């Protein structure tokens, strides 16, 4: 599944990088990129930052996770601006992205991953 990557979008830069650190512990071979905060580094999200996180990810198929609703709007905007295939999950940010990354690490297929994510849907 080296074609798959994980993208973390949060309103706060530290949350995004922190979640990536948590994930990297169990998914050393999965590409994880982040978009945290606004372009100025404040609390918020940025469609352009998200687009950069898409492009800099080594994966061509991306599993994307976000914290609050307004991040989702910017994610969907960024989705329209990239050629990569982006799957957007309305699941708990930390718990969902951790689950997905752990499963990607051991080569699980997307359908199985999505089945594992289903109970984490809260948005």
């Amino acid at each position, binding site marked *: 599944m080296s074609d798959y990557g994980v993208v973390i979008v949060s309103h706060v830069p530290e949350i995004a990088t922190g979640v990536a650190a948590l994930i990297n512990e169990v998914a050393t071979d999965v590409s994880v990129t982040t978009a945290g905060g606004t372009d100025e580094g404040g*609390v*918020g999200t940025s*469609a*352009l930052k998200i687009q950069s996180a898409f492009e800099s990810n080594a994966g061509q198929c991306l599993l994307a996770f976000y914290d609050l*609703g*307004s991040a989702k709007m*910017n994610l*969907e*905007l960024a989705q329209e601006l990239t050629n990569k295939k982006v799957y957007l999950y309305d699941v708990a940010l930390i718990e969902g992205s951790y689950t997905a990354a752990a499963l990607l690490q051991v080569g699980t297929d997307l359908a199985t991953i999505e089945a594992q994510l289903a109970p984490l849907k809260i948005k």
Partner: protein
Amino acid sequence: MLTVENTLKWLELFNAKIQAEKDYLSELDTPIGDGDHGNNMSRGLLAVHEALTTQSATDVPSILKTTAMMLISKVGGASGPLYGTAFLEMAKLSSTTLEVAPLLAAGLAGIQKRGHAQVGEKTLIDVWTPVIQAVEADMLDGATIETAVMATKDMQATKGRASYVGERSIGHIDPGAASSGYLFTTMLMAGVVS
């Protein structure tokens, strides 16, 4: 009917109004949100102002497109992708028509595509919807706009950050509705609607 002149005038008046009401908009966002709506819109409109004054666009579609891109990249909050998508959809349609009513309707459709909110959920949609109806009936005036903004006060938010406080959102004007109110009062001032 949108023209290069009245569109630029509209956006300049909107920018001035947003800068003047910045603190008030953030205050509205404090009890039912994170208190940044005025700062978000101020940052976004300042970028719009700078882009439009340096780029000297000569057609309506590119003015609207530039506005959209600045709002998308600079606002930071939910209002960024919402207003940004609205202007993007208006920009797209403006190469076909410059009539105000269909353009605003395309903008509203963009807001709904992005945010999935319906009328009555205490968002800027609750201003855009009655304003468009009034434009279509050729009856838009300041009172219509003001009434729509004030009507959000009694609504309970079910979308956006304000939805987290549930019933406690009742009794406060929605900040996005207020900024949309300014968008439409300055549209009237700019003479965009005949």
